[in-house]
């Protein structure tokens, strides 16, 4: 059983959804980001999405863009991703990486997969890679025992949902709305409908992301999905704050979200 399968089995046994938290490595700096990911794991995230900052993040909204730009300016490197996955694993959560594809391609897909597996990473979310372009990643992930997490969106047709879910393992990243990452007043009304459509195609856990920012929204999503993905709201707790103050705010929001995925918000 893979690490992701285990965590979803455990959550299911506890009658709740999994909490998946995203943070970019290198923000506010590399050490600070490792501390933040550790705090996120300790405060209740089941899975930590380790984001690698990229110069051209077309799927990200202003909050994550800002953190990524600052992290790059301070000199974050792809090697730091693997330090982060190791730190997350040590803190007791399951690490997955979120990376734009050129960063993986440039390192060499097989080498990247080997490094990720060696550092305790469970798999990778690829926001700008569709299954048709993922032949090399498919082979490398099989070779190194990693899960492949692709995305479905409200625009996905039944045919696309079938293509994507067949290529996925671990879980399916279900985008709640059309758009980029960022907090929203409400989770898209299209999310429950999309989850229902994807369930017809697969038994894999379905995790919903884009726009979730508080415990109440987490509880709402947890009522129909297997996992709740939170990104920009967590990153926001670290922006414009001193390190200790930021970590305290991060722990507080994580605890609220963890209550949410247990239906207690």
């Amino acid at each position: 059983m893979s690490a992701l399968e285990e965590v979803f089995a455990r959550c299911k046994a506890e009658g709740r959804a999994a909490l998946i938290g995203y943070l970019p490595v290198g923000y506010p700096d590399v050490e600070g980001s490792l501390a933040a990911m550790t705090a996120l794991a300790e405060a209740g995230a089941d899975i930590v999405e380790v984001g690698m900052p990229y110069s051209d993040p077309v799927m990200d909204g202003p909050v994550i863009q800002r953190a990524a730009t600052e992290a790059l300016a301070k000199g974050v490197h792809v090697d730091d991703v693997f330090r982060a996955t190791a730190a997350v694993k040590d803190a007791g959560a399951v690490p997955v990486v979120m990376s734009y594809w050129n960063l993986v391609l440039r390192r060499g897909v097989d080498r990247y997969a080997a490094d990720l597996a060696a550092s305790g990473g469970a798999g990778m979310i690829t926001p700008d890679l569709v299954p048709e372009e993922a032949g090399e990643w498919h082979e490398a992930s099989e070779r190194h025992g990693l899960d492949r997490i692709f995305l479905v969106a409200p625009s996905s047709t039944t045919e696309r949902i079938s293509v994507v879910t067949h290529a996925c393992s671990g879980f399916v990243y279900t985008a709640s709305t059309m758009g980029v990452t960022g907090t929203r007043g409400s989770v898209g009304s299209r999310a429950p409908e999309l989850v229902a459509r994807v369930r017809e195609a697969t038994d894999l856990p379905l995790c919903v992301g884009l726009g979730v920012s508080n415990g109440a929204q987490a509880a709402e999503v947890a009522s129909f999905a297997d996992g709740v993905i939170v990104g920009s709201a967590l990153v926001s707790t670290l922006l414009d704050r001193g390190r200790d103050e930021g970590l305290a705010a991060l722990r507080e929001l994580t605890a609220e979200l963890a209550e949410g995925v247990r239906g207690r918000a």
Partner: protein
Amino acid sequence: MSEDDMSTEQSRSQQAEPAPAEVHVPGRFGAFGGRYVPEALIPALEELDEARQKALVDPEFIDELATLHRTYTGRPSIITEVPRFAEHAGGARIILKREDLNHTGSHKINNVLAQTLLTKRMGKCRVIAETGAGQHGVATATAAALMGLECTIYMGKVDTERQALNVARMKILGATVVAVEHGSATLKDAINEAMRDWVTNVDHTHYVLGTVTGPHPFPEMVRDFHKIIGEEAREQVLELTGRLPDAVIACVGGGSNAMGIFHRFVTDAGVRLIGVEAGGDGIDTGRHAARFATAEPGVLHGAMSYLMQDAEGQTLETHSISAGLDYPSVGPEHSYLRDSGRAEYRYATDEQVMHAFQLLCRTEGIIPALESAHALAATLDVGKELGPDALLLVNLSGRGDKDMHTAAEWFGLVDKDTDA
């Protein structure tokens, strides 16, 4: 029979065979191209692919576009022989294809009119576009006004400052212009922001991508909407000179004007295809956009192609005196033509470009766009290399009105104290 006559004979007997650059896997030019995009955009790309394939064989669409080109764009664009300029190029015979005389001042309108017609056929009411120098933005704003579409143009903040007049033109045409401040605040960041808009609003919005880059079907589609340049030019040159040119020369940023003029000549084996990239301050300085001189393949904005990137795959910043060539990647078909040896690529530095720019102004009374002046700079060298018997066809892709500010500064024609 001279070699020239033979090549003419060959060319005339050649029917429209499949070009060697034709894609074998849908959306791939050899190893290049593809679709590296968020899943959310795949349905829109498939819808677009279907719509353009239907349109390309639909007599109604073909007629509508041809009529627009005749009555609105001003096609066919003429060719002009430039003997006084050619004296500085080893005496070679030089012919310019005058895309600068099109409505809105560049080749960009060819693609934009076709894509906005497609937008209407797909039942969408809004278009968005990126722009660097502003030419594609102005062309898109123009077509949107003509067709009654809502229009938003994304432009890097740095570019809005250096091309303030084009910002005003777009606004006067009714477009909303968004100055993009993220990243390097230039063309690539404008494309990022346009893609974010598209992911969000794709149900009613079409992204009028302005060059032969991006995910499939854009590189193929934009090329097809510009190939009229080479089709016209080939006939015009044959009519004027009785033979095919020895070389066809065009500047390459994303590479749409170059693909437009190259495409019809790809099967003419005797015709050299020469693309000219931005050499900026010189290759050694690192401040340039000469992808083929220094870069390796990578993925940016949906396509696999040569890409200026660091050791970890982060996109590098580029530099060129011409905003339109200031882009870190290049259309995937160019990468294919280059690696297969069918086309060759050179670069011209800012200094060489400004020399060629001034030379064409002074010898022929034609003010070229700085982008097109890259092709002219290389033409001076190619002419000297091939000698006085050579016949060169150059794509003058745009006019230089938009560049007066840059040129005046370069040549010291403005008082810096009064010119903020």
